[in-house]
């Protein structure tokens, strides 16, 4: 059962990756081409997901939006984890005062709801894909940092690090050969789980008009554009929403599957 779930996730992710790297393969049409005569068509064979108010094919737009959404998701997670690594390692390895300072700082960040933190950042630096990506990264960093710190604290006290000391290994060698790889093992799983979450967050920001801006084919922006027509033309919001959900579920399935594997190798 677990394996079925894992492989379903892997298959979905693989499809999304193909769509992101070569959207033309899946949907050869132009995502920005408008056909005013064909506006608001319901899903059919000609238009799998229907069309929007300008007659643009929603299937094509959703597929072409995959790249933007995945990129935002992945880079936001990378920023979050990158920052978290710095804070987590400083806190976990540094002297006690540094640990104390970093941890208190992270707790202050924690006190804000993540999305609020992201909004705050955007208010200061202005909307856009770049800022919303950084904002999401910032907002997720404290959570990762806490996990990394606790993991570092466990590993640095592990008897195998002491055994390495007894063998005459220096601090850097212990850090590179034992500590970081053992911390990274658990981090990898977190990363996969985090990407899905970041995609949802980035879409939320675009939906609020703070991330990608129309006419760009980005899922959150498409959701936002479709909102006006929600009662009459459901497909304009349903399909971008479905893809946000699929990507979040797929990454979660893969992340959980990997978690099981690393726990019971």
């Amino acid at each position: 059962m677990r394996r079925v779930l894992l492989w379903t996730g892997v298959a979905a992710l693989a499809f999304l990756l193909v769509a992101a790297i070569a959207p033309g393969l899946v949907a050869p049409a132009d995502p920005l081409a408008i056909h005013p005569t064909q506006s608001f068509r319901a899903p059919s064979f000609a238009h799998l997901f229907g069309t929007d108010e300008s007659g643009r094919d929603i299937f094509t737009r959703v597929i072409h939006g995959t790249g933007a959404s995945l990129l935002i998701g992945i880079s936001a997670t990378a920023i979050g984890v990158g920052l978290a690594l710095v804070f987590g390692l400083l806190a976990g390895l540094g002297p006690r005062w540094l640990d104390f300072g970093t941890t208190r700082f992270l707790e202050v960040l924690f006190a804000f709801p993540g999305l609020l933190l992201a909004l705050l950042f955007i208010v200061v630096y202005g909307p856009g894909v770049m800022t919303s990506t950084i904002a999401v990264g910032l907002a997720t960093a404290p959570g990762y940092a806490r996990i990394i710190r606790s993991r570092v604290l466990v590993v640095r006290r592990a008897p195998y690090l002491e055994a390495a000391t007894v063998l005459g290994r220096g601090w850097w060698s212990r850090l590179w050969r034992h500590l970081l790889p053992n911390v990274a093992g658990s981090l990898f799983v977190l990363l996969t789980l985090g990407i899905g979450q970041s995609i949802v967050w980035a879409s939320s920001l675009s939906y609020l008009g703070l991330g990608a801006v129309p006419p760009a084919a980005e899922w959150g922006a498409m959701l936002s554009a479709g909102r006006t027509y929600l009662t009459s033309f459901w497909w304009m919001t349903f399909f971008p929403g479905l893809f946000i959900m699929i990507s979040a579920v797929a990454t979660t399935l893969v992340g959980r599957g990997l978690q099981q594997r690393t726990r019971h190798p």
Partner: protein
Amino acid sequence: MTALVSVRELAVSFGAAPVVSGVSFDLQPAQCVAIVGESGSGKSVTARALLGLTGGTVTAAELRFDTTDITDASRRRLQRLRGRDIGFISQGALVALDPLRPVGREIADSLRLHGSLSAIDRHARVLDLLAQVGVPNPALRASQRPDELSGGLRQRAVIASAIAMQPRLLIADEPTTALDTTVQAGILDLLERLRVEGAAILLISHDLAVVSRLASHLLVMSGGSVVESGPTERVLADPQHPYTRSLIAAVPTGRARFERLTSGPAAEPAPAEPAPVEPAPVEPASLEQRDVLAADRLCRRFGSLLAVDDVSFSLKRGRTLGIVGESGSGKTTLARLVLALEQPDSGDVSLLGEPWTGVRESARRARRPRIGAIYQDALSSFDPRWTVGRILADARGGAAGVPVLLESVGLSPDIAGRRPRHLSGGQQQRVAIARAIAPRPDILVCDEPVSSLDVSVQAQVLDLLDDLQRSLGLSYLFISHDLGVVRHMSDDVLVMRDGHVVESGPTEAVFGAPQHEYTKGLIAATPQLP
């Protein structure tokens, strides 16, 4: 008199594989029968079958407790038996107790489930039980949680809960493993008293010396079946089965230095070890007498606790200095000081005549390979991501010597590709030894290297350490709570208590004519074969 417990042709299997087969024995009131064997021999499964707790498929010509047929009994009937008529003492006293509840509540459980006492009477009975099993200050202890109690007190609490309903049968599965020697002696005395008062006891252990004190009848199990059984004296004096003989031979207590504990080929003439580890450089006679390791008035304090208090010793090349003491005696702190993982508050250690503590780590690093270490928990001393081969290649500084290294500790080179967690406890400790000798050290610090191993595996590891000492000219600092092991392994010995040395000198002089009360107590508490 009919037997209280009667077992005939008991067989237990999980799936297709039989784990236990053809086990038969009787148990009378006020009798103790012991099942002896190493891990995986099926002894614990046999004991659990009496409680109806095995799972799997249990078949038996007869499996009877008093008038109840266990194989046939309903779940409800078994639940009534457990705790009321059959008490169970399991090995891990920490995991057997709920960490979030006061131990008094835990003990009161069986009174509540099986008795009709009021809450106040139950509390009084709990205090009474704790006092009976020798817990000092029962009122305080009953209100504490397991993590506030020492290992010995926890095990006593488990026993108190097992005997709460005055069961007619007590099943004790490794009741003293992992406990200090004197604590173990106390627990065994307690079990003996319960037996005299009329309880039937089924005792499970890997250690013949432990059970021989209590049991009138022995069952020796190996590979799921009983290889030998009979009255204790007869089995010990005249063992018929080779496995029984090897178990008896494995007990280190009272065995001379270098006497072999296993029947494997003796390593003499030693070099079972070709090129990889060069023979120890031949030292001129003057150097021969020099100390490879010396500690001078070491002190280490943790807060208000003086963990190591004015300890001095010296270790000569090719010799073993044993350090014996119970938990909290400071012996592990001493090991960490010697390995310079911990800095002394005062005093110093010198290695091969040069200062070792009190210098910077960078000044020590180049000399680190001279002193190696093996630990009680070998598994956690390996990076979990690494294979055996990588661990050894890392310690050795190259993959070339790995197969020879594995062979020198009696392992097949095939296991280089496996991860330590897939190996048995004995194999893990062998890998740890291989890693420790890989940089060709002069000294090995062995901190409780065999205390989590079965007696038979312990014997193999001790023999291996003996062989390596002679072929490589190693000096050992050998730390253990087990006086029998230390006595067998050491040339000189240090008896530690509460951080200071109570007695020291050549092993036979110290243990042959102990001067200090504490040493005498330790010797009296050490289980021995009659």
